[in-house]
């Protein structure tokens, strides 16, 4: 009696599995037909799963960006998997929190490298954390693809280090020469920058661009990342009588702008770092009016190219995505493209690295590719704030 029951249950389960397999095969080929615009390639069968590691600051001062990474990489992986996977492989992302602390980040990257199932690592947010991770991925011969590390010293540290964020050696001189010198046409500027690897290198390249454009630098002040009161720095810049203030920072930009305006000073303001985020407009209100901001993308719900990503991101994080999140989305797409280009070859850490070098991805905000060192190459926009909204002042290609 008991034996018969077990047989029946087994038969029902087997039949169920067969039906489920047929349904699954059908839906995969269907999505494959409509997936000509995506990086996913469908050959009718799933070859298995490729695991990727994501190391990002889910907590701490950069948590909003880390949580953005988490949401954006999930969106990209879901899209690729729904379209049949990357060359038939389903992508799975394992997420760990570094709090943007280089030591924690290095520990997590070591754990990922020790896990043989993880074929490539995405992250971290800050250049400092990525530079702490670089020797580890070099030793374990595993790709570390950062969405946002823009310190030019990072990617050359190892052939396994990549970044999809533009390199400061390209962008910062352009901001100094073309944005401040040519577009804004100012003769003197005061600079305030974050005392991190990113801030210091960005400042160095900016000064080169300003010198080329003949703009006089009347003050060049630095501050720590956890600074809350900028009044003493602002008083110094104010005393220099500069026409414009250039802020090189990310999360602190709204606070700095608010404190500059609260001090009763009204210089021209330009910033590099935060991207054209809605959060900046919310935090600054009227104080952001006439701000000039440089970015490599402009993500809104109105833009047909970014609408879908915007809505999916908003559904997960209840806030608008920034360029940082878009870059995280691009990392998954580029890895998927690299896996596709491996073709019938074995997908290993080494083959992903080799394929990634020549991968370029035509995404929501133009083409992304790597330079000879693995640093990101992108194009830039000049945006301004008018009536509480971003307006594109100069399109890609302004020199």
């Amino acid at each position, binding site marked *: 009696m008991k034996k018969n029951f077990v047989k029946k249950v087994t038969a029902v389960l087997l039949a169920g599995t067969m039906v489920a397999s047929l349904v699954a095969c059908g839906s995969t080929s269907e999505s494959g037909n409509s997936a000509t615009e995506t990086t996913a390639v469908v050959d009718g069968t799933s070859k298995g799963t490729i695991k990727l590691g994501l190391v990002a600051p889910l*907590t*701490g*001062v950069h*948590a*909003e960006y880390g*949580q953005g990474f988490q949401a954006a990489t999930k969106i990209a992986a879901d899209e690729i998997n729904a379209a049949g996977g990357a060359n038939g492989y389903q992508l799975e992302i394992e997420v760990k929190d570094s709090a943007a602390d280089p030591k924690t980040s290095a520990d997590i990257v070591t754990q990922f490298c020790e896990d043989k199932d993880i074929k490539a690592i995405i992250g971290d947010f800050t250049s400092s954390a990525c530079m702490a991770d670089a020797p580890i991925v070099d030793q374990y011969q595993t790709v570390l693809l950062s969405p946002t590390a823009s310190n030019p010293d990072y990617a050359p540290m190892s052939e396994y280090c990549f970044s999809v964020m533009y390199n400061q050696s390209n962008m910062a001189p352009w901001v100094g020469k073309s944005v401040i010198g040519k577009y804004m046409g100012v003769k003197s500027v005061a600079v305030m920058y974050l*005392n991190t690897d990113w801030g210091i290198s960005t400042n160095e390249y900016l000064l080169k661009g300003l010198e080329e454009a003949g703009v006089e630098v009347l003050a060049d*002040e*630095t*501050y*720590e990342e*956890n*600074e*809350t*009161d*900028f*009044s*003493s*720095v602002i*008083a*110094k810049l*104010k*005393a220099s009588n500069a026409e414009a203030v250039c802020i090189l920072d990310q*999360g602190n930009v*709204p*606070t700095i702008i*608010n*404190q500059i*305006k*609260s*001090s*009763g000073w009204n210089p021209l303001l330009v910033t590099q770092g935060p991207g054209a985020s809605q*959060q900046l407009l*919310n*935090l*600054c*209100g009227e*104080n952001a009016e006439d701000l000039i901001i440089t970015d490599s993308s402009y993500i809104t719900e109105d833009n047909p190219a970014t609408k879908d990503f915007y809505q999916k991101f908003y559904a997960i994080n*209840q*806030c608008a995505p920034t360029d940082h999140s878009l870059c995280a989305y691009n990392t998954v797409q580029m890895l998927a493209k690299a896996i596709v280009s491996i073709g019938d070859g074995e997908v290993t850490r080494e083959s992903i690295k080799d394929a990634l070098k020549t991968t370029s991805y035509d995404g929501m905000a133009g083409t992304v590719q790597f330079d000879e060192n693995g640093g990101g190459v992108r194009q830039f926009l000049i945006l301004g704030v008018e009536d509480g909204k971003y307006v594109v002042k100069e399109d890609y290609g302004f020199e």
Partner: protein
Amino acid sequence: MLSQYIISQVVNGLCQGFIYALIALGFAVIVGIVGLATFTHGEIIMIGAYASYYIFLACGHNLILGLLASFSASWIVGIIIYKLCYERFLEAPEHISLICTIGFSMLLKNLAQIVFGAEKKPMLNVIENQIYKFGPVEISKVQFVIMGTVIVLSTTMMIIFNKTKWGIALRSVSQNREAAALVGINVKQTSMIGNCIGCAMAGVAGMLIGIYYQSISPTMGATLSMKAFSAATLGGLTSVPLSSLGGVVLGLIENLGISISTASFRDVFSFGFLIIMLIFKPTGFVKRKGARP
């Protein structure tokens, strides 16, 4: 021009100092007067700021309502902290409750990131951005409000703890719990209310800091609470007015130091001053060694 610059740095230093003083007030009440160790002060500041933020969102920029919200929210959190971290450990060594508060502070910070979101929230134009000029000195309206609040609160606290029967009872609890119980003081309730007063001070400070910096975030209290701790140490950890003075002195030293170097050295000046002060005068600004008010 140079004198104008120095004056503006002194004013900035004073305002920064009053911010530290505002936080140090509550810290001095909890640590100095009630005699409890705490590491949750930064998070109480954040709770107070968020309470007022949501009231401003719901009811418009009504300062009184915001003040009541931040005061009562942080008072309630003060009760929870007392029940979880102190009440059971009153007879235990002090480091037990200290470690409890460290754990609770982490819990609050991470809960806040989950509940309120990790991103900064705007707190714009709650107090009109108006700048008053007195010759070369320029002070904004919000800076006036902060300075006034610190002066009023420290004077009120000083009167409560030194002149009222309840204040004296509270101080006696911190000096000797058993003796206080023997003369009929409800030790647990008195300590709890003392802790809540300190927390409520921090909550109000959180609201004012949010208004001053025009934004709030779950991590806003972390750095400030370290400075407040330094300010309270300068004040001998036992005196509310001297802790406020410690805050003002720290703010001044930081900003004058920055005016001759860079803002990256802010902490070098403040903590350097604290170390030097404690080497040469371990009691801080308090006259007698180990004095309890």
